[in-house]
């Protein structure tokens, strides 16, 4: 041993350069160990390794192993026994084998990945089959390929031209563990889904064809290379997972076969831990995901039977415990376990959900209203234009055509940009909500178990709660951010869309030519037109109010309220008297209105001459009469014989009493019968008063009538207009009518000195002849 050692030391220098850095590293590594024995063995190692590098490796290995054995045994013996050496040798051999295996398998694995990519993934991707989701099947297999390549190169670098005793595989793994974990995590995460997706594809004939085609080409290649046949797509996809699970095993084996004196030992230990952690993390991720999957299953989908089947002692007790805890929290306040971040995120989550829900509802209702309103507006616009323009005249382009098409664009765009994203977003909310609920349950469990702190139970509850909590916090944050962005986006889109719609409408309406607003306002123009229309006779005659007033029995032209209705005047009366004999003359007892055709109106006291005492139909109750101004029928019951000699019954207050009458008659009888001229003497003496009588007073009989309408003016009256008659005091006047046109009894139509006019009634007094 010693000579060799010495020889080793001599030849150390030549190899110094090569291994200097390595040595220092090794030395550093070894330094960390508190094994003093190691130090001495290091030098021994060096010499041994130096020596070996010049000669056959295997020999060297053996020797090294011999040297290592004392360390492996942790004995203070510096000189390894032959058995130790042997063991070391064996271990080293095994180690080399394992390393070889590691590298070789990695190489194979890499080749497999390459082939997979080349023959399966890329062709499938380039074919772009619709239902075949290449990404879903293989997720980040390219990254896996990359990292594997890197690992391989690192391994190769660590093993080629490097003394086995110096080969540090652990380092390689430690270097690469970060990216390794990330990439494999993703792949494994997606693998489950990928597997189920693959199964679903297998069921479809067409897709299966595609897949088997690719597999076939792959199989062919394998056949050429003489490698074992891979079974199917599934086994191809699972390779990375198998690989990553193999690492810990390999590393463990490697470590076990590495003598502790080997520099690699500790590194390997750490690498092994690291790789194991990777696997644990991947599993943890999967577990979280499974947990989430388990709890986010829609409970409504479970049938009653399912629910019942889930009931058992365990679940019942669990649930009752939870309820108790919940009540405890409610009554006592804060729970022991709090997570403020979570609470904040959860609040945000809830408010977002409410916002999105309301937005969807409101925006869709608003859009619906817009949709409803637009056609009406257009339609009414078109109709109005139709009415207001001549037939065939077109006043500018139709706003209708211009607006309807862009409106459809608006509807489509709003659907795409606003409603679809928002509804999709809304549908994403329930999932997390269920999980939040579950987390709360777990929280309760954890809470309840805390005081007791029974190890396993509390641990389980704690782990579950924390798993869920961590997952939720992390993802709720992401969720809230993304949801808010979407919401803001949609609101902005909404506003933009509205603006565009308004613009379109504006343009459409602006193209219609309009005359500038005329001087007269619209209402004036229209009122003017309307007045003209109303002046049309048919409107006047038939307006609603008028119709109501009339009883529509008459078939003549509707009687209009004419200011002057032809009434019997004195002239008529005198004519009658002169024309007809006394026995034909009758007087109207009262006012009779014309009711049937050819009837005439009679006022009370009017004189009529009966021409026929029957009507065309033969009835004797209707008589054909002549009033001097008109001829027509009146019912005989209205008439009484005209008998000037008799004292006639009076029923109006404008008749004189019998006394006076007799006096007058006496007086009057001396007048000549033919005298008809009115004497317009204005003396107030009684004798003179006779002269004032009107023309129709020649006949004594008739005179009575006249008498009854004679008044005198108590006071003088000055006419203020054409319609009124001036009176002088004590002037006698003859009253034609005891009311004016509108029925006002204050003004009477009087005749004096050949003039007619209205005089106020209270100025007049009855003539009484003493």
């Amino acid at each position: 041993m010693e000579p060799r050692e010495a020889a080793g030391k001599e030849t150390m220098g030549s190899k110094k350069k090569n291994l200097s850095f390595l040595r220092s590293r090794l030395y550093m590594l070894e330094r960390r160990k508190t094994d003093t024995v190691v130090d001495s063995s290091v030098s021994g190692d060096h010499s041994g390794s130096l020596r070996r590098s010049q000669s056959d490796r295997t020999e060297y290995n053996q020797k090294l192993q011999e040297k290592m054995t004392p360390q492996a045994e942790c004995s203070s013996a510096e000189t390894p026994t032959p058995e130790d050496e042997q063991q070391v040798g064996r271990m080293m051999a095994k180690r080399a084998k394992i390393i070889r295996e590691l590298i070789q398998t990695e190489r194979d694995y890499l080749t497999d990945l390459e082939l997979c990519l080349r023959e399966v993934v890329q062709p499938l991707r380039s074919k772009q089959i619709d239902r075949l989701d290449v990404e879903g099947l293989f997720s980040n297999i390219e990254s896996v390929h990359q990292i594997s390549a890197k690992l391989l190169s690192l391994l190769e670098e660590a093993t080629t031209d490097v003394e086995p005793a110096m080969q540090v595989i652990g380092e390689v793994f430690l270097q690469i563990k970060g990216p390794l974990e990330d990439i494999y995590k993703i792949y494994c995460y997606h693998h489950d889904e990928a597997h189920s997706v693959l199964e679903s594809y297998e069921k479809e004939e067409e897709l299966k064809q595609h897949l088997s085609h690719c597999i076939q080409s792959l199989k062919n290649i394998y056949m050429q290379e003489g490698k074992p046949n891979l079974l199917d797509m599934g086994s191809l996809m699972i390779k990375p997972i198998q690989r990553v699970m193999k690492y810990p095993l390999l590393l463990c084996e490697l470590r076990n076969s590495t003598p502790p004196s080997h520099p690699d030992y500790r590194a390997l230990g750490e690498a092994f831990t690291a790789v194991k952690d990777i696997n644990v993390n991947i599993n943890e991720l999967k577990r979280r995901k499974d947990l989430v999957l388990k709890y986010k299953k829609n409970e409504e989908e479970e049938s009653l039977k399912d629910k019942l089947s889930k009931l058992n002692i365990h679940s019942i007790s669990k649930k009752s415990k939870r309820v108790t805890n919940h009540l405890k929290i409610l009554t006592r306040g804060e729970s022991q376990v709090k997570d403020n971040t979570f609470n904040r995120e959860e609040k945000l989550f809830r408010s977002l959900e409410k916002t999105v829900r309301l937005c969807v509802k409101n925006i869709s209702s608003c859009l619906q209203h817009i949709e409803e309103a637009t056609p009406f507006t257009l339609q009414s616009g078109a109709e109005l234009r139709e009415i207001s323009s001549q037939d065939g005249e077109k006043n500018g382009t139709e706003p209708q055509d211009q607006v309807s098409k862009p409106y459809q664009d608006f509807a489509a765009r709003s659907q795409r940009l606003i409603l679809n994203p928002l509804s999709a977003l809304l549908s994403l909310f329930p999932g997390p909500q269920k999980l939040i609920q579950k987390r709360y349950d777990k929280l309760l469990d954890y809470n309840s178990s805390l005081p007791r702190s029974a190890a396993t139970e509390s641990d389980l509850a704690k782990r579950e709660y924390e798993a869920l909590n961590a997952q939720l916090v992390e993802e709720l944050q992401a969720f809230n951010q993304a949801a808010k962005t979407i919401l803001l986006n949609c609101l902005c889109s909404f506003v933009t869309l509205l603006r565009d719609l308004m613009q379109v409408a504006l343009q459409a309406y602006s193209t219609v030519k309009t005359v500038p607003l005329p001087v007269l306002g619209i209402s004036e123009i229209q009122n003017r037109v309307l007045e003209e229309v109303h002046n049309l006779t048919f409107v006047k005659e038939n307006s609603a109010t008028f119709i109501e007033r009339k009883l529509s029995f008459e078939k003549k032209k509707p009687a209009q309220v004419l200011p002057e209705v032809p009434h019997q005047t004195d002239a008529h009366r005198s004519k009658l008297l002169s024309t007809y004999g006394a026995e034909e003359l009758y007087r109207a007892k009262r006012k009779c209105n014309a009711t049937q055709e050819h009837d005439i109106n009679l006022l009370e006291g009017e004189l009529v001459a009966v021409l026929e005492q029957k009507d065309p139909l033969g009835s004797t109750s209707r008589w054909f009469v002549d009033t001097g101004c008109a001829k027509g029928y009146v019912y005989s019951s209205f008439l009484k014989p005209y008998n000037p000699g008799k004292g006639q019954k009076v029923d109006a207050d404008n008749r004189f009493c019998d006394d006076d009458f007799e006096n007058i008659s006496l007086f009057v009888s001396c007048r000549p019968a033919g005298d008809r001229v009115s004497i317009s003497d204005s003396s107030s003496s009684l004798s003179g008063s006779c002269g004032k009588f009107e023309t129709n007073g020649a006949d004594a009989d008739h005179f009575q009538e006249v008498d009854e309408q004679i008044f005198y003016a108590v006071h003088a009256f000055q006419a203020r207009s054409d319609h009124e008659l001036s009176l002088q005091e004590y002037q006698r006047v003859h009253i034609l009518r005891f009311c004016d046109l509108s029925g006002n009894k204050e003004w009477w139509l009087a005749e004096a000195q050949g003039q007619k006019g209205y005089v106020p009634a209270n100025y007049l007094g009855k003539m009484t002849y003493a």
Partner: protein
Amino acid sequence: MSWIPFKIGQPKKQIVSKTVERDFEREYGKLQQLEEQTKRLQKDMKKSTDADLAMSKSAVKISQDLLSNPLCEQDQDFLHMVTALDTAMKRMDAFNQEKVNQIQKTVIEPLKKFSSVFPSLNMAVKRREQALQDYGRLQAKVEKYEEKEKTGPVLAKLHQAREELRPVREDFEAKNKQLLDEMPRFYGSRLDYFQPSFESLIRAQVIYYSEMHKIFGDLTQQLDQPGHSDEQRERENETKLSELRALSIVADD
């Protein structure tokens, strides 16, 4: 009386010439159509204004709900945005109301007034019809008497009938002429009457839409993310949504 068979048909054809009748029918037909149009227009305008009002009310509701949301408390930017949106919506509502009022005043009410003339027209036509029927009846009677042998009582009756006929005929002629004269005038008056309404409607719409355009243009400037095109927005939404769907906590359909 109307069920008596001989009343239907005969008298009309004989007494009133076909051309006259046709003219009358034509004019009256036009007016009836106009009546229909005005009625329908009234209904449509009412529906349109109601729909407009409903729309602006629902728009205000959007912003109101957003404003009352607790999200506003947490995020200032969001609050600003929602307040701006709310202001815009309220202004839209106000302008809409104004527009509706304007339309009400210048279109719907004049429409109603114009429509109120139609009952009178219909009544007048009915009267003319009645007069026509009477005319026909009496004419038939006269002819009946004319056909009989000319004995004394018959002659007397004939004379009587003729006398009766005369005023009726005159009445009918007068009515007919009046209506024939006035119906076209009425029909023509609609042009002058409705043209201002139409223009006012257009004007009101133009004013409203230009205001709205301005309001919403300002709003888009004010909000974050001006100038994003549709596709950009859509893509952004899609990416966000797929991001969300990728989260494990989200239920996948």
